[in-house]
């Protein structure tokens, strides 16, 4: 098995002779996207005109469908079918895995009369046009027998239990140390339900040819989607061709298949014509997953010099009754600060709300909103600068596991950031700086996010013209996957970028796990790198074994690949010449990556520091960003442009988290009060003022052969806490309840007599 030591050897990517790695090259698919010619799932042209399906969703949180009156809908113009649990075609029972290797089990749509959450599909209408389908869907009348439902999180803590297969982590004697600590913080922070609000609602178009179904869908995980559909329809996965070439945002919310996938395929089979289905924006809020609310109690005990002696982070969160998802909001805290006596853990409330699930930096995103404010509170109590407090608690080894860090540049992120941001301008006494009616303040927070590598494969082909095509069952959800795969392939094979094609998002291609957990670039990229290396070997063999090649006879160890030319010193030919002559059908090889056997011997993370300046309107309590800067250490950066976009995008999510984003639950109905984009407030352009970021130079040779790490989620981790701390610095009002909307801020100001 591979060891991380093997990854420390120089290779074409780390040597980067072509200079393609790290360069801010334009997005590979950018020209298609800026011209509107990149087909997303619902844009896909089917072999014949599709019928349109529309979902009908439940309006109770828990109970049974007692009757469905479909007569009016069935009689409505253009309607081709109306399905409920009574007449939907047979599907495998939920959880079936006929093929034990399936990555996802069956997940039938309209599978029974049970309603498990508000917004669950209860009927499905297909008509010739969208207009007819939408109108007919409104005619379906559903009657329910509602059952008591647990929907009020704050009122249900008595039902909280340990998540499955999980124990609290105790190190040393937290309680004793906390009781003895001269300076303590014991505060509770709340982060509410948030929603992904990907710009593209979930959508699928499906059609059949014989026993085989083709689906173009919007999903982050190619294999997961393919297997889920195959298992649900009880057909072999080889009969499901799933494509997901362009995805209008995922953020974790499209990591799993939804009813659009299942029902479009079933309806296309029943109607013998293509069928497409999209969720409405409103349906997205209840019908797909959300980030659950998290209540976090943080207790810190410190010496007067700032050294932490006692450290506890306890998170209570919730998930759907039938699910097991846990928002691991305390996990990050296990690796962040040194403290000898520690307690961390999670509690889970099973609720009858729509499904909770992963959303950009699950765990860190809500979790860091608490500890990074608590550290700010502690710094103030100690009279220390918040950066200094963190430096004093910087661990040499992982504070929980005792493992060495693969590389840890958190302190440099903070000091570099402080300097570039102008942290010295901050007045540590809150409420001192004014700009007219605006009270101005600055805050900072640290960022940490785990780094992961999963098994993946990739295939690479060179054709007789020297064009290299990388193929992988990978996805690009806006992360820049197309582009970095092209860069890795180009650099590995020493060819200009223009000679590389990238084809992804297809279940026929060698599998990669997809986009999630910021493992995408490292995982898919490493497999692409390995495939490229295998192609190098194949081309080397071809050249040195071909009497017509100037490289004939080798020595193979001296072969170089540069600028589309294969050479041994001054003996050379172009790859096109070589392949065109010696392998006119082209060469195809695959490569794969899996975690190194000893990778777990290191504590491996990405790090950063956020700095924010906000203005708080003293009259109204409105908070507006004035400036934000982040410094990040996330391994080798493959593409300066797309990596920066990922990171600033994450920071902006932090701004939304801190100031505007909440899905409020109405406990009377078990539903969200806000379910559209006018009421769920993702940041708009005007909210984001003077926001920038930079990366430190880094290569993590314990991460993978290229020393790269993920950047997609790091940017949100801690970002919201920097804003909250800035609000405190501006006003002296300490809020612990996100988002910090004008009503809460104003109440705080008024309580201070402002």
């Amino acid at each position, binding site marked *: 098995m591979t060891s991380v030591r093997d990854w420390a050897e120089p290779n074409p990517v780390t040597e980067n002779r072509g200079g393609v790695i790290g360069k801010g090259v334009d*997005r590979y698919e950018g020209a298609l996207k800026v011209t509107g010619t990149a087909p997303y799932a619902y844009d896909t042209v089917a072999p014949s005109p599709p019928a349109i399906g529309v979902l009908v969703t439940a309006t109770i949180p828990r109970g049974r469908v007692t009757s469905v009156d479909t007569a009016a809908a069935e009689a409505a113009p253009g309607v081709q079918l109306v399905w409920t649990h009574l007449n939907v075609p047979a599907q495998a029972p939920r959880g079936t895995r006929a093929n034990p290797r399936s990555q996802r089990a069956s997940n039938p749509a309209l599978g029974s009369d049970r309603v498990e959450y508000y917004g669950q599909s209860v009927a499905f209408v297909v008509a010739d046009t969208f207009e007819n389908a939408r109108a007919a869907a409104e005619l379906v009348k559903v009657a329910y027998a509602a059952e008591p439902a647990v929907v009020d999180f704050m009122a249900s803590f008595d039902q909280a239990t340990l998540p499955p297969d999980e124990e609290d982590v105790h190190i040393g004697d937290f309680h004793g140390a906390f009781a003895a600590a001269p300076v303590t913080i014991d505060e509770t922070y709340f982060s509410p339900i948030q929603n992904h609000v990907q710009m593209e609602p979930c959508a699928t178009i499906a059609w059949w040819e014989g026993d085989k179904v083709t689906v173009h869908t919007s999903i982050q995980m190619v294999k997961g989607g393919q297997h889920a559909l195959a298992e649900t329809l009880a057909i072999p996965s080889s009969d499901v061709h799933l494509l997901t070439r362009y995805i209008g945002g995922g953020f974790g919310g499209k990591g799993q298949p939804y009813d659009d996938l299942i029902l479009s395929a079933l309806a296309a089979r029943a109607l013998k014509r293509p069928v497409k289905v999209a969720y409405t924006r409103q349906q997205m809020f209840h019908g797909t997953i959300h980030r659950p609310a998290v209540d976090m109690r943080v207790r810190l005990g410190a010496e007067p010099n700032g050294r932490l002696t006692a450290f506890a982070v306890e998170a209570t969160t919730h998930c759907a009754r039938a699910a097991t998802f846990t928002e691991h909001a305390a996990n990050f805290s296990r690796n962040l600060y040194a403290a000898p006596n520690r307690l961390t853990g999670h509690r889970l409330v099973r609720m009858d709300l729509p499904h909770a699930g992963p959303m950009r930096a699950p765990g860190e995103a809500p979790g860091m909103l608490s500890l990074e404010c608590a550290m700010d509170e502690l710094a103030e109590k100690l009279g220390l600068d918040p950066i200094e407090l963190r430096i004093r608690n910087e661990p040499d080894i992982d504070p929980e596991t005792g493992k060495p860090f693969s590389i840890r540049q958190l302190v440099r992120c903070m000091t570099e950031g402080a300097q570039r941001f102008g942290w010295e301008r901050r007045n540590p006494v809150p409420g001192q700086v004014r700009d007219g009616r605006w009270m101005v303040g600055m805050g900072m927070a640290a960022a940490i996010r785990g780094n992961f590598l999963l098994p993946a494969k990739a295939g690479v082909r060179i054709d007789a013209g020297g064009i290299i095509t990388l193929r992988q069952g990978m996805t690009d959800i806006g992360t820049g996957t197309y582009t970095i795969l092209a860069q890795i392939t180009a650099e590995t094979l020493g060819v200009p970028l223009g000679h590389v094609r990238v084809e992804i998002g297809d279940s026929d291609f060698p599998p990669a796990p997809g986009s999630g957990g910021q493992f995408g670039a490292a995982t898919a990229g490493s497999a692409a790198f390995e495939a490229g290396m295998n192609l190098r070997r194949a081309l080397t063999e071809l050249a040195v074994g071909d009497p017509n090649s100037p490289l004939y006879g080798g020595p193979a160890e001296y072969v170089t690949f540069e600028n589309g030319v294969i050479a041994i010193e001054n003996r050379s030919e172009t790859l096109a010449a070589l392949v065109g002559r010696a392998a006119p059908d082209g060469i195809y090889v695959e490569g794969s990556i899996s975690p190194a056997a000893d990778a777990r011997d290191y504590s491996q993370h990405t790090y950063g520091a956020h700095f924010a300046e906000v203005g708080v309107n003293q009259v109204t309590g409105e908070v507006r960003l004035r400036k934000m800067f982040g410094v990040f250490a996330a391994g080798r950066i493959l593409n300066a442009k797309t990596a920066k976009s990922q990171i600033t995008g994450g920071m902006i999510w932090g701004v939304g988290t801190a100031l505007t984003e909440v899905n409020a639950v109405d406990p009377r109905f078990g539903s969200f009060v806000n379910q559209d984009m006018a009421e769920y407030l993702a*940041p708009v352009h005007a909210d984001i003022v003077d926001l920038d970021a930079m990366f430190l130079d880094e290569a993590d040779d314990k991460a993978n052969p290229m020393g790269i790490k993920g950047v997609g989620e790091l940017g949100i981790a801690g970002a919201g806490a920097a804003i909250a701390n800035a609000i405190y610095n501006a006003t002296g009002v300490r809020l612990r309840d996100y988002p910090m909307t004008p009503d809460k801020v104003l109440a705080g100001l008024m309580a201070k007599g402002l």
Partner: protein
Amino acid sequence: MRTTITVNGTARTLDVDPRTTLLDALREHLGLTGSKKGCDHGQCGACTVLVNGVRINSCLSILAMHDGDQVTTIEGLGQPGALHPVQQAFLERDALQCGYCTPGQICSTVGMLQEAADGWASKETADLSAPTALTDAEIRERMSGNICRCSAYPQILAAIRDLAGEVA
């Protein structure tokens, strides 16, 4: 119901259900899927197109309202290999990630620059009678009808700044 519109310079006559929105007419009947549906309720801007040169949300129009109008969609601005300057600037500045909001952002930018050239004020304009200066704050406000959940805002600003010239 029969409606004639000129789309990207070509007159098109459609006979569709009166409920068909301009957005769905473009996407489902004319094959112009560049304009996106993010919300269908005027809340996101992904469907922004230019009608008689003016940017609007095409999801909150029915086709019939546009009989006789000139409609420009993202496809009409430029094509791969022959990009419109705004498309080029978006590409170079990485003012897109998933790309789903991007056609709307670009059409909106074209409309917005014209509004600024016509001297229209915005909420950020301090002096309502002064000529329009496209400061960063002005650009941000004027582009706030286009939500980008990927949050490419700093890059979108940079792209538009390239086109609008450096105005502090």
